């Protein structure tokens, strides 16, 4: 697919997605990476028909997003969490905000109550049910926005930098939550992020650069390519980078380590120390 933003005044167009072909499988956890302005959010907006392609097609469960008669079918299947939580807050009380999307989908009242409680519980915001969203700090708002998407019980959850404003504890909690929804609930996830330590948790990573898919593969295939990733404006987890640096002097290190646990285990192996690593 190709997408161009059109400037109303000048009539000029800007090509932002340039021949992207992508198949997200049911139940997959996909991470989307890329430098600022590379086209990630634009791609995300195609997944629930906020934008439709200039040429090519986008199919969600077989439904063509350009078919206006079937818009509801697309929106019902895709939950979105955007980069900017304030634009997503619609109600004056947190729990009403979370209830907004399922209400729009016509979910029965009792069921809504259940879903709202459950979603707020998952993101750790139950205590703030009755609060006004504008009183929350940045990270707290982001968690409510995620709860709002979860309350729709979508088949595909598209998240555009959902953890950008969260503290480390909150980030870990959200990513664990997403991992669990994906693994146990079978939810398909597309996560846009600038945090490499989140991307390593995905089944597959794609890197967008200048509107094209520049790199694609499992995290263990992608992250050892340190120079390539750097040239795409990205970096790698500190653990991966340490091993990468040490490898220049010490042959035989496993460069596919992705986190602190794997890194420590690999270094212990290299030093000939046998020790069971803690989880």
């Amino acid at each position, binding site marked *: 697919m190709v997408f161009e933003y059109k400037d109303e005044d000048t009539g000029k167009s800007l090509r932002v997605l340039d021949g992207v072909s992508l198949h997200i499988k049911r139940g997959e956890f996909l991470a989307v990476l890329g430098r600022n302005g590379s086209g990630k959010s634009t791609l995300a907006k195609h997944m629930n028909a906020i934008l439709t392609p200039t040429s090519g097609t986008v199919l969600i469960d077989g439904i063509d997003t350009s078919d206006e008669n079937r818009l509801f079918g697309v929106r019902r299947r895709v939950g979105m969490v955007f980069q900017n939580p304030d634009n997503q807050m619609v109600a004056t009380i947190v729990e009403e905000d979370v209830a907004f999307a399922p209400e729009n989908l016509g979910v029965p009242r009792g069921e809504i109550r259940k879903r709202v409680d459950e979603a707020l519980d998952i993101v750790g915001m139950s205590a703030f049910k009755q609060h006004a969203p504008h009183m929350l700090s*940045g990270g707290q708002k982001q968690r409510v926005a995620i709860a709002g998407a979860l309350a729709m019980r979508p088949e595909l959850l598209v998240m555009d930098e959902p953890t950008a404003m969260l503290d*480390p504890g909150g980030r870990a909690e959200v990513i664990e939550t997403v991992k669990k929804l994906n693994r146990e609930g079978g939810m398909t996830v597309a996560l846009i992020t600038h945090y490499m330590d989140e991307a390593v948790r995905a089944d597959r990573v794609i890197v967008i650069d200048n509107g094209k898919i520049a790199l694609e593969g499992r995290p263990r295939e992608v992250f050892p390519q340190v120079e390539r990733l750097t040239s795409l404006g990205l970096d790698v987890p500190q653990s991966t980078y340490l091993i990468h640096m*040490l490898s220049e002097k010490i042959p035989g290190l496993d460069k596919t380590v992705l986190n*602190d646990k794997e890194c420590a285990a690999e270094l212990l192996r290299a030093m000939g120390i046998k020790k069971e690593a803690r989880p």
Partner: protein
Amino acid sequence: MIKLENVSYTYMSGGPFEKKALDGVSLRIDPGEFVGIIGHTGSGKSTMIQLLNGLLKPDGGRVIIDGEDLSDKKTDLRGIRFKVGLCMQYPEYQLFEETVLKDICFGPLNMGLSKSEAEERARFAANMTGLPESLLDKSPFDLSGGQKRRAAIAGILAMEPKVLILDEPTAGLDPAGRDEILFKIRDMHKRMDLTVLLVSHSMEDVAKLADRIFVLNSGKIEMSGSPSEVFAKSARLREIGLNVPQITRVADRLREAGVDIPAGIYTVGDAYRILLPLINKRLENN
């Protein structure tokens, strides 16, 4: 010099939603320091820094900038705001002009600079933050998230403040952009003796840049010290919603397994310098 003396702040005081955001905070920051501020969401970081340039008034205690008490009616708050440049959390909301260039010029024009001086500074600041020339005539609303963030930071830099306060400035920036902006700010800090307060959720960034770290927890200062002092307390940091850099966790795991590696390792460079000889020695012995 920046001083907080026993400062408290409560939102919606007396109402049913009363919220004590800061509770008896005292601290002192000397000119030319690079300070990191970390804390869980809602711990009071944004409240604290809004007190520092007079956007909020403390309801207890004193905020003193270069000897001037900000609650004092005689204090020229406008002057303080030019001196203490605050880049707010989600600064992209503050973009409102027709073009990116005009937006970056807003602060300098407000300070009374001429249009040409303001534009010169704006172009320089845009370059510092890695915004390409071609975007300067665009509407700020048509930028990507990270591009908006850069424009907002450029707007503050163009005012050339003595104290630069950045509230989570790199959220939404790609890794290259994040490093680029932070290292340029560190460079300015060194060359121009700029005092910097960096609020961040990235333990890695704070570890790389700050000389001293303040840790906020539920409106109080939980601890402060050098990165190696603070990041040696990983268990406590995790308890209060924070963490240590990933590289510190690697070092902690190795130490637990009996490797002779000191506490408080917090950059990849440190880890590399310590581990390389250790591994080589082991390899020779085997």
